[in-house]
């Protein structure tokens, strides 16, 4: 086919833009586009004209969990476990108090540094955010985002999986997905390395074998800090 006629190029670009081309014609046109800058410009005009069809659509507020899901997919996630109170904690507290006084005097108070800054979002198989996890000194705080209902004879169990390693249980996810999961010393140490967090469906009371026995419903990868 002769792709050089202006009218034909214009018509083909229009077909392509609105999506009428069958798959083979579409692939051929894709190849042409790569080599032909003027054709890309022609296509751009059609796409602009067609995009105006959506210009009159009303805006819709977006629920927060959509952003959480996007972030979970583009950011390396970090679950920061703050240091547990060591014996010199009081000294540190004193120093921190001084720092705050100075910051206030200077008029600069970095609020962010005082709260929990790190959390991870676990997503379901369809990439929808399901569970948010925040780290504290001796526990994880779990918040449900969109959690599937769990039968009363079953529990959700949270696992830490180091690259190439076996899953290690961090404990049961509280009923309804909201609450605390206490951490022991070994579990805390585990969370400082890059790993994957996963939630599996287990019999009531957790896996009887020490390894996940049911399907993994949610997961999220963590990076180190």
């Amino acid at each position, binding site marked *: 086919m002769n792709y050089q006629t202006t009218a034909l190029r214009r018509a083909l670009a229009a077909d392509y833009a*609105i999506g009428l081309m069958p798959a083979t014609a579409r692939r051929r046109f894709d190849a042409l586009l790569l080599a032909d800058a003027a054709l890309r410009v022609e296509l751009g005009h059609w796409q602009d004209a067609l995009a105006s069809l959506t210009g009159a659509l009303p805006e819709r507020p977006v629920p927060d969990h959509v952003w959480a899901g996007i972030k979970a997919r583009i950011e390396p996630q970090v679950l920061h476990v703050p240091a547990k109170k060591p014996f010199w904690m009081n000294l540190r507290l004193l120093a921190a108090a001084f720092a705050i006084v100075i910051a206030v005097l200077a008029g600069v108070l970095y609020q962010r540094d005082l709260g929990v800054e790190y959390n991870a979002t676990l997503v379901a198989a369809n990439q929808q955010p399901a569970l948010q996890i925040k780290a504290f000194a001796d526990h994880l705080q779990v918040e449900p985002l969109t959690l599937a209902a769990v039968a009363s004879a079953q529990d959700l169990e949270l696992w830490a999986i180091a690259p190439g390693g076996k899953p290690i249980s961090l404990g049961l996810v509280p009923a309804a997905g909201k609450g605390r999961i206490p951490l022991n010393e070994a579990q805390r140490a585990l969370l400082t390395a890059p790993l994957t967090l996963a939630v599996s469906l287990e019999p009531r009371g957790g896996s009887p074998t020490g390894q996940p026995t049911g399907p993994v419903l949610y997961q999220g990868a963590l990076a180190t800090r």
Partner: protein
Amino acid sequence: MSDADPLQPLLAQCALGDRLAFETLYRTVSPRLHGVALRFMGRQDLAEEVLQEAFVRIWYNASRYESHLAAPMTWMVNITRNLAIDQLRKRREQPLADGQQDAMLDDSPSAHEQLDREREARALNRCLDTLDGMQRQSISVAYFQGLSCSELANHMAAPLGSVKSWIRRGLERLRRCLES
């Protein structure tokens, strides 16, 4: 398409890996793209899935945006539309389960629309008014449902050749009018 489009520097910063710029971009355009996704999908949950996927693509493909080819919003609407149409095509291949049909919602326009949006819409409506009924209908069904030519002919119960020419002529008239 104007050089002063504030979305353009945001996209450029996203291309450099600036997450803060991405969040600003998201806050600015997500309600608009959500409206687009909902128009295509007709269901809240499906629209949100498409929207999430669209923004993941926008982030990873920001460096491939070419400002001389399309306005940033056009580019982002196209990403959203293509994902929505892929989903619609997949769903057309598998029939709806019980109850899903009931979940379809009717998208009536929100009560207040911004002034420039209205002006834009007026220009579009004026141009759509220059099309005859079949041209208008075939363009809007092809655009919003992602039907191929033969599916479209089926849908409109009209010969393939007629549908093709309605769309061709309609699009041509629409673009000339919008550009005038």
